[in-house]
């Protein structure tokens, strides 16, 4: 089973999915991320899926799960780079990923996280 690497950039964790995900890899990524958010105290997670050709219900559910987990650690999650064909298919499948933030690309995803962190700083 291949593992998806997690990179740390500042206080953001970057997950760039470059492989054809099997279910075990999905579960492993969820565990690894929970571990990493907790140990680094990261404030944001960016999941780049611009290279992902299909997202089925299992993978789609992972996004929601990761978003929920990171919320427990006071971190935000942004899914970036979803391809149009994937988005159309997910809608048809009935998955709307409620509660998951999205952005067109990595740069915009990082910007959104920056804004969220700043807002949180102001509120605190």
């Amino acid at each position, binding site marked *: *089973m291949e593992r998806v690497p997690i990179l740390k950039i500042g206080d953001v964790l970057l997950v760039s999915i470059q492989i*054809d*995900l*099997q*279910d*075990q890899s999905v579960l492993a990524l969820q565990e690894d991320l929970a571990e990493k958010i907790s140990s680094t105290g990261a404030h944001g997670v960016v999941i780049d899926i611009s290279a992902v*050709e*299909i*997202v*089925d*219900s*299992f993978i789609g*559910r992972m996004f929601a799960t990761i978003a929920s987990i990171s919320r427990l650690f006071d971190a935000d999650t942004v899914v970036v780079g979803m*391809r*149009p*064909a*994937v988005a*159309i*298919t997910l809608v*048809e*499948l*009935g*998955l709307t990923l409620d509660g998951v933030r999205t952005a067109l690309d990595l740069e915009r995803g990082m910007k959104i996280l920056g804004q969220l962190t700043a807002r949180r700083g102001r509120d605190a």
Partner: protein
Amino acid sequence: MPSPTQGPERVPITGDDDVVRVRQLVRAYAQRMKLSLVDQTKLVTAASELARNTLVYGGGGFALVEEVHDGPRPGVRASFHDDGPGIADLDLALADGWSSGQGLGLGLSGARRLVDKFDLDTEVGRGTVVTVVKWKR
């Protein structure tokens, strides 16, 4: 130039990585039959859901992937076979949000929305065969 009809090709489904293999084979067929990118994605996604069902609910089985032709219109057919417990209540299984195992219960109903033709043949105690077809638009 007429090429000989391809398939059926058989993929055993006994583990996680076989689901990925089914996706790749279905993708290859969909590309060869020149389905649009969106239709390729829909078919591969449906195949992924169904292959996972075969593995998780059916206890494993196999998939068959082949070309089909309806007059001049080409398409891809994929079928998923298992000798598992079968489905007792079809209406319930096809309804959104129901699941007898893990997942959101989107497996069957979701897959059905993604394809042009969806046939489900099941017998309690004997197993299940799900066949889907996607035509070139």
